[in-house]
């Protein structure tokens, strides 16, 4: 009998070396999460820069990459966001082949539910913008929502009834760890050194230019340094005296036991605040809201979980007797406009990629691609140019929450 997960493809037998850090690299990437690994891979692959080290303070991809709900979509409101997320989605569509690694990318579609008349307006606005930006998107009425996901409670006996939803058929999920390992293996094969348990503790700057990093495994010289430290970016940037408009918050998620397939797509609801998919083995994977305050503890408060479950049962009464097996938390770096910051810094040859908050997994290949370009050329890639740090000074924000687009 083939049980759940037994049909999952086997991993390669070999992933990475565990090299000792060298004294010097052309590029040092701080943070071995999905973004850091993808950046290293595209630096090597697209730009031929292979004398690269990815320095990771813990185990590789053990930060948010290990703990996200893996939702991938590109149906963002603003042109700037649609540009970079759609670029990422297109890369996702070829990634398994490119990395020669089974990443379980499943385009099962993502539904974003609307529960108020204003949600409906915002949703239609987003769908219409998506279409004009070449992003697949549909507005579904409650009946159509029910057809896409039959277990959603579309009856009016819910506190905030479902008034419809947006649907992106090309959106979906992938297996987070496999994605990280796929990028890691490919980067390693191209000569990138992946150095684990190597925490960056200082940034060496001379005459406004970065020259290397101090680490728990000694000093490492670097021609260029690229930050990819997600929730810890403020801490690392502070080593260069750079303040950032970031706040790091706890964000939690949880899984149920393995269940027979009940949930064919991904459902997200901002108003009722829950997002759910059923992963390949059969566990329900669910995300909660962020804790309101800053936190670096990789854990969140319990009432957030209770709220999340009450929201889940509003939408999915069938989940009542499912069980929570495990909850966990990550540290998400949130910007004032809920859009990322990718580009140059006031320090020469020091680059910045952060602020993806609750939604940067889906960007992994896209941002890796653009960030690698930025690092290799010293100029922002056109797709990340709008996400510069100086938008906070000019006011040209890319306000994704103001426009009621949903995170994750």
């Amino acid at each position, binding site marked *: 009998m083939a049980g759940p997960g037994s049909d999952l493809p086997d991993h390669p037998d070999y992933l990475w070396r565990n090299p000792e850090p060298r004294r010097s690299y052309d590029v040092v990437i701080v943070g071995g999460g999905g973004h850091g690994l993808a950046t290293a891979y595209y630096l090597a692959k697209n730009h031929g820069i292979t004398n690269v080290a990815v320095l990771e303070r813990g185990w590789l991809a053990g930060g948010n990459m290990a703990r996200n709900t893996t939702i991938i979509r590109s149906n963002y409101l603003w042109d700037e966001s649609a540009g970079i997320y759609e670029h990422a989605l297109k890369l996702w569509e070829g990634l398994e082949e490119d990395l020669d690694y089974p990443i379980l990318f499943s385009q099962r579609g993502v539904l974003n539910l609307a529960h108020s008349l204003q949600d409906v307006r915002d949703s239609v606005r987003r769908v219409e913008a998506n279409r004009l930006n070449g992003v697949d998107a549909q507005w579904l009425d409650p009946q159509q929502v029910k057809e896409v996901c039959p277990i959603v409670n579309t009856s009016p006996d819910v506190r905030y009834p479902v008034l419809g939803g947006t649907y992106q058929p090309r959106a979906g999920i992938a297996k987070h760890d496999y994605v990280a390992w796929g990028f890691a293996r490919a980067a390693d094969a191209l000569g990138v050194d992946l150095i684990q348990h190597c925490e960056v503790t200082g940034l060496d700057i001379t005459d406004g230019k970065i020259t290397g990093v101090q680490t728990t495994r000694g000093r490492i010289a670097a021609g260029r340094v690229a930050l990819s430290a997600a929730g810890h970016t403020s*801490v690392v940037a502070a080593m260069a005296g750079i303040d950032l*408009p970031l706040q*790091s918050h706890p964000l939690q998620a949880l899984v149920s036991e393995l269940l027979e397939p009940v949930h064919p797509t991904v459902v997200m609801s901002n108003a009722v605040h829950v997002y759910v998919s059923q992963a390949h083995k059969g566990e329900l994977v669910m995300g909660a809201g962020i804790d309101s*305050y*800053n936190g*670096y503890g990789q854990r969140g408060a319990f*009432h957030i979980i209770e709220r999340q479950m009450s929201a889940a049962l509003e939408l999915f009464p069938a989940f009542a007797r499912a069980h929570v097996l495990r909850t966990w938390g990550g540290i998400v770096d949130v910007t004032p406009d809920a859009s990322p910051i990718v580009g140059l810094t006031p320090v020469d040859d020091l680059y910045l990629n952060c602020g993806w908050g609750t939604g940067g997994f889906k960007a992994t290949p896209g941002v890796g691609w653009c960030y690698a370009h930025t690092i290799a050329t010293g100029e922002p890639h056109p797709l990340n140019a709008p996400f510069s740090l100086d938008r*906070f000074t*000019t006011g040209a924000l890319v306000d994704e929450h103001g426009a009621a687009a949903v995170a994750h």
Partner: protein
Amino acid sequence: MMLIPCPWCGPREEAEFHYGGQAHVAYPSDPAALSDEEWARFLFFRDNPKGPFAERWNHSASCRRWFNVVRDTVTNEILAVYKVGAPRPVLA
């Protein structure tokens, strides 16, 4: 669920409070005199330390008072509670 000691009501559940972010960020006395960079700093840039952080809380479900707290952002341990306007206490 933290237990936050309101200086007026005593310890209460975190859910009764609103978070107010970094403490000691004064509204500039003359915004017009600030450069765009300085104004942007006031608007958007806040400390985000890993460790003790002086921050504001409002006891919104009860006495509606704002007060300051020094909390370790790693452990959530509350190291000090003090009133608005008081200087950040020096912690050993």
